């Protein structure tokens, strides 16, 4: 993984820069000691690491603005950071960068059940947003598997999704407003408690911009009333093709489940060994969840089970109570942990048109044999967002490189069948150099021109999203 050569002038000026930062922040909010900055050397894509020049942990929007003004003047690159759970290396620093972490900014600023929104500082974790409104039976819909740890800041930057986004959408569909600080230190307010933008949809542009356009410090989020109940069913099939057909038939029947999750045999076996959820040993397993009152759930499941039976399932299991529902979800929810238990893994995130599922799974199987690395598949089948997990051994010479090459081939395949490189994790550094496979040079140029408007000096998270070659000239001008 190539990263830009750090700016020697910045590194040489470290003492002055740190002193200036200390001038605007509390003493414990500036970290410069090499043993301590190490904690910020990577995000959840741990294969790539680099300790930053310094780390700042501001406590308010005004402090964020003060930090950015200094970094802007000193031409120091800034890497915004939420909880550091990015799987794309979005929060990976460079040696000349200041990591700006919003973790200390986690307050709830306003809850309004009548107007159905909550305003929070963005360091707040995803799950604790729902936690803040739960007693009134409300929730924040986007639910990434990392929700216990990840922050709203990262959710907005990556436009994160979750298992329930088939029905409720991803972050951008649930974001009403932000307070953002530009690299020059200017505070802007976009959107608010009302719906939709008056002028250009800048909110839509900010969401998913991977910390390259501004540092988001506060967010107004849509909250929803919880449904009366939810219930999953589990179905097992002998082939991925048939399972894919079941998914398509369910959608065509007019039922809109909140979640349709898919696991293949390697993934089922691994999670069984780890969590013992009692899953059948079959080629493809689906978990389908619907919501409503008990009678409403029965009605929808009636339709779904009828479709499921038509396709000869090897197993069909309904949840009679909360316990059984939890058991159905148990394996799926521990899939990542199970993989981590076996080996190091790389989690991919391409999206494909739903009908290409069987073909793509077959190709991934073939490639797995070619590259000599195992793959387990677990993903959101309703919307075609795949998460192939490639298993490798980080201690084995060359294994990471093989894994990277294999991953790139899978993502190219996703694009080839009409899909995209990333459905919810973001480009970061991981998929940066594959962007040319999905977009023409002029498409990337148009996106980079947007960054020119917000951050003309290319100081915010500069080495991400765009192939280094494509952004080189702009970054060079900055340095």
């Amino acid at each position, binding site marked *: 993984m190539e990263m830009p050569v750090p700016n020697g002038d910045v590194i040489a000026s470290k003492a002055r820069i740190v002193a200036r930062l200390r001038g605007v922040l509390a003493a414990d909010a500036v970290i410069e000691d090499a043993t301590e900055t190490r904690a910020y050397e990577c995000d959840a894509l741990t294969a790539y690491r680099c300790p930053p020049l310094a780390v700042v942990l501001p406590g308010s929007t005004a402090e964020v603005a003060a930090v950015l003004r200094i970094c802007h003047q000193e031409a120091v690159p800034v890497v915004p950071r939420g909880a550091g759970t990015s799987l794309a290396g979005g929060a990976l620093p460079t040696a000349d960068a200041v990591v700006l972490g919003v973790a200390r900014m986690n307050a709830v600023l306003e809850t309004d059940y009548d107007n159905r929104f909550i305003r929070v500082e963005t360091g707040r974790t995803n799950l604790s947003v729902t936690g803040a409104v739960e007693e009134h039976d409300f929730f924040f819909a986007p639910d990434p598997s990392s929700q216990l740890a990840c922050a709203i800041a990262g959710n907005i930057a*990556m436009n994160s999704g979750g298992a329930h986004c088939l029905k409720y959408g991803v972050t951008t569909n649930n974001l009403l407003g932000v307070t953002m600080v530009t690299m020059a230190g200017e505070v802007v307010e976009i959107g608010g408690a009302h719906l939709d933008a*008056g002028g250009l949809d800048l909110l839509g542009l900010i969401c998913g911009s991977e910390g390259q356009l501004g540092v988001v410090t506060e967010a107004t989020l849509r909250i929803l009333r919880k449904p009366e109940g939810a219930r999953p069913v589990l179905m097992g099939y002998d082939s991925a093709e048939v399972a894919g057909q079941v998914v398509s038939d369910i959608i065509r029947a007019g039922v809109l489940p909140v979640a349709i999750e898919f696991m293949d045999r390697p993934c089922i076996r691994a999670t069984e060994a780890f969590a013992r959820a009692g899953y059948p040993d079959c080629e493809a397993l689906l978990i389908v969840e619907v919501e409503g*009152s008990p009678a409403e759930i029965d009605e929808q499941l009636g339709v779904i089970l009828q479709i499921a039976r038509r396709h000869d399932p090897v197993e069909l299991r309904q949840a009679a109570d909360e316990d059984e529902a939890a058991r159905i979800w148990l394996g799926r929810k521990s899939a990542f942990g199970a993989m981590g238990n076996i080996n190091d893994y790389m989690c991919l995130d391409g*999206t494909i048109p739903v009908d290409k599922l069987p073909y793509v799974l077959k190709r991934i199987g073939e490639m797995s044999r070619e590259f000599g690395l195992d793959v387990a598949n677990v993903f959101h089948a309703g919307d075609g967002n795949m998460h192939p997990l490639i298993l490798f051994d980080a201690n084995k010479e060359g294994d990471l490189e093989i894994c990277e090459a294999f991953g790139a081939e899978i993502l190219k395949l996703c694009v080839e069948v009409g899909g*995209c490189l990333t459905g919810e994790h973001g480009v970061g550094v991981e998929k940066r150099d594959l962007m040319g496979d999905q*977009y023409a040079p002029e498409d990337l140029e148009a*996106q980079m021109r947007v960054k020119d*408007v917000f951050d003309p000096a290319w100081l915010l998270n500069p080495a991400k999203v765009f192939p280094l070659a494509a952004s080189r000239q702009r970054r060079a001008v900055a340095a």
Partner: protein
Amino acid sequence: MIAPRTEAELAEAVAAAAGPLRIAGGGTRPVGKPVAGEALQVTGLNGITLYEPGALTLVARAGTPVVEVEAALAAEGQRLAFEPMDHRGLLGTSGAPTIGAVVAANVSGPRRVQVGACRDFLLGVRFVDGRGTVLKNGGRVMKNVTGYDLARLMAGSRGTLGVLSEVSLKVLPDVAASASVLIGGLSHEGAVRAMTAALGSPFEVTGAAHDAAGPDGAPMTMIRIEGFEAQVAYRAEKLRGLLGGFGEVWVERDPALVAAGWAGVRDVAPFHDRGGDVWRLSVKPSEAPGIAARCGAEGLLYDWGGGLVWLLVAEGCDLRARLGDFAGHATLVRASEAARAAQQVFQPEPGPLAAISSGLREKFDPRGILNPGLMG
């Protein structure tokens, strides 16, 4: 008039343009400041290019009539869930609304409050920027965070950043049944409270509107539910109970009447045959009655539980002066060309945002030829 038939022709036309272009789809929505320039008609870019009901995805060229899209969807039991408004009745225009223009103006209807706006269903776009370069963003799959979200930026940019040539949309299954729960005689505040109660319930209300002067001149509050037959019956009863304290509640189950009622809200039917300027406000629902009260409106229709306010005011009325400072935005949707030229049609933006917007326009349309000045 320039009337390209293909994306390539469109790109050539924009590249070759010597002066400003006035971009038109079906010509049913003359919203915004009047634009002086040569007409660029995109209706020649026409046709559905991909429709996969099992993947809930539809891709169409920008000039495809909305009716054609809706007919194709209906044949498969699906629909555009954001139910785009048809502006013809309100604006007195004719012609066929096109799907590209729906996206360009981010046009949504009553269901927006539950399922999201047009921009929330947009999966990808192809467009021609002001240089005449063909660009694409997003794609045809339901989840996509690859690079910046220019597709959403294009939605609502009203042709000022680029000319859409193709749009890709997420569609949803149509519903088997629907019902309107109706309450008569409520004050504006009472209506917003009732709608708030309904929207805060677990019954997935897909419409919450209040007509200050309903069919016979009396106020009428409408709550919509949709779903399977038994589900709708169950939820209607639950809502009847929940809203009983607000006034007399009854449930309309006749599908034709329910559909007509919501089409009327969507298209702002109460103002169709009445003269005057029409404004559209997006506000925090609880603040809607207070804001509306200071507007001295001759007609009032609340949608989105109060979050969307349609106001009918005397022609030439300086509504922005009456509105003063408020959280949200106001758009002058219907007024004479002279009035639209003289007033700020869209909500003026605070300095830093205005600078970002004009910075973006400069990048996408450096010559300033795409609907120049339309958004102010």
